[in-house]
């Protein structure tokens, strides 16, 4: 069973005061997310990522289409006991303490009374907020609020978790922690669906990604597949500051940084390069095949979409 099946979900808004003009926020979207994977939903700002999430959460009603979450209709309220949601830049009842807030959410999610305090404590521990559990949320920093957001999303041990821009507002340590958490969730057998515009995060974490732009899906697939349109290049790094003539002859692009040189050569010339270095008695540090970065794929897809579509509307 797929964790998420989006069947033609579509949203058109009517904007304007006197005359209403339709504005397409999401074109009919067809997407499937498998059980147990970390799925990245990528796109620039305003692409329709948050709209999709809001549609799935039932906060906004689709113009057409439907979806199934964990095999049930997305409007079924009981499904929500198995789902966690972290909205973008979340805001919580700031008159409550972290403990009270999570307790409230646990109550609403139907966590049994006996279990509640244990779960809340464990979750607070997990997101690193145990020390401030009695502090009112109005005193929390942005990063702390983000952690609270994550906490309330996983508190009731849901099978499927939705994160909207989970890394926003976090410092590098925080981001690392969130990434680790997401991997842990995957190890626990949960499915994670998260939207972001930061591609390096997606590249590092996701099994599969989808790219959305101006409400339209531009590409879906496993990260390796998308980035394995390998340029056929190889990166060679060696100690020293010299660039042997033989390397230059291979047509390599060389960059000297500090005490290493980095050169990019064709895959076919791999062996010739190694020989060249050995002849010159230069110490080889690394030899790495280069993959298209997700970023390049992303930019490519967007650019192509724009040229085929003509004007950008």
């Amino acid at each position, binding site marked *: 069973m797929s964790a998420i099946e989006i069947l033609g979900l579509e949203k058109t808004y009517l904007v304007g005061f006197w005359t209403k003009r339709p504005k397409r926020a999401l074109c009919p979207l067809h997407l499937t997310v498998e059980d147990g994977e970390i799925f990245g939903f990528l796109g620039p700002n305003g692409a329709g990522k948050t709209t999709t999430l809001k549609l799935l959460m039932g906060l906004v009603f689709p113009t057409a289409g439907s979806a199934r979450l964990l095999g049930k209709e997305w*409007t*079924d*309220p009981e499904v929500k006991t198995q789902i966690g949601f972290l909205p973008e830049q979340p805001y919580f009842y700031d008159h409550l303490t972290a403990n009270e807030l999570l307790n409230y959410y646990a109550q609403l999610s139907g966590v049994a009374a006996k279990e509640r305090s244990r779960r809340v404590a464990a979750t607070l521990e997990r997101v690193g907020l145990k020390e401030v559990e009695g502090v009112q949320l109005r005193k929390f920093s942005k990063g702390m609020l983000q952690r609270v957001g994550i906490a309330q999303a996983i508190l009731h041990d849901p099978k499927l978790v939705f994160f909207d821009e989970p890394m926003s507002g976090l410092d590098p340590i925080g981001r690392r922690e969130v990434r680790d958490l997401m991997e842990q969730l995957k190890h626990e057998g949960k499915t994670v669906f998260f939207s972001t515009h930061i591609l390096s995060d997606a590249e590092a974490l996701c099994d599969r990604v989808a790219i959305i732009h101006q409400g339209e899906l531009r590409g879906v697939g496993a990260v390796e597949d998308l980035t394995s349109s390998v340029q056929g290049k190889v990166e060679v790094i060696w100690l020293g500051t010299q660039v042997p003539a033989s390397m230059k002859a291979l047509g390599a692009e060389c960059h000297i940084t500090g005490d290493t040189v980095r050169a990019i050569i064709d895959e076919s010339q791999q062996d010739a390069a190694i020989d060249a270095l050995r002849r010159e008695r230069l110490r080889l540090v690394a030899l790495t095949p280069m993959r298209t970065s997700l970023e390049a794929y992303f930019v490519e897809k967007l650019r192509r979409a724009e040229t085929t579509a003509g004007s950008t509307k």
Partner: protein
Amino acid sequence: MNRRRASIIAGVCLAISLAFSVVLLIYCDRVRPQSALEEVLYISSPKVLKRASLGYDGLLADIYWTRAVQYFGFRHHNGESSYNLLAPLLEISTQLDPHLVVAYEFGANFLAPAPPHGAGQPERAIRLMEFGIQNNPADWKLYYDLGFVYYMELQDYGKAADAFARGSKVPNAHPFLRLLAAQMAEHAGEFDTARMMWSATYQNSQDKLIRQNAVEHLRALHVDEDVTHLQEAVSRFGERTGRLPASMAELANAESLPGIPVDPDGHPYKLTPEGRVEVRVPDDFPFATKGLPPGFKPQPKFHSQEQ
């Protein structure tokens, strides 16, 4: 879809509760009409109310005045015979706005007369008039109203004359005030004087109820006068012939009247076998004092419709 089901249930609940609320209000109004008005009985000090109204006393005066009119009109229409909230309503209205002249007029016409035609509180009406005069000394109509109450309800012709005289001294007073003052002295109890008063009231008021009331009184005066004269004719006939006339036609003939006398509605007067002159439909003349069958109690309803 769950949302649709919830919407339908909510819509149905809305419709049902709305229906019940409206039905309850209709029932409430029928069973306890104007019940909220009773609170006027417990406003011990209109002055406090005036202060509490935070400067909106004009508006509040209008509200209480409108309530007074509705209160009286409603009860009058339903044939009620008591109007014990009228005095407090008028008093509060005039305390809030002492220049509400029409309220004093209303008091003179409906506070003073005895039930079922009014609240039967002539003293209170007098006090109201005096308060009105105190606050509006240049309004001749208030002196007229004061005199009116003395004349109509208390039959105190001396004080009535005083009031009319005071009023006649006000600049721009209507000339008939001087006339009325003079009439009081000698012709107080006559039909013509009463007719003059009611015509004056009719002409000088804008209020629908007051005018209708005046019209009814004029009609009654007409009947009273007619019946008096006809009754005198019957007596004369009796003296001449030693018996009662057999019918109105015979009496008309004997008196050389142009035709059978009719009342203001055009119905001929009756002559009973006992020799009494009566109107055909007594109910149409609630204020008539003559020409009514013995033991007849008038209903305080207005017959004529003021256009």
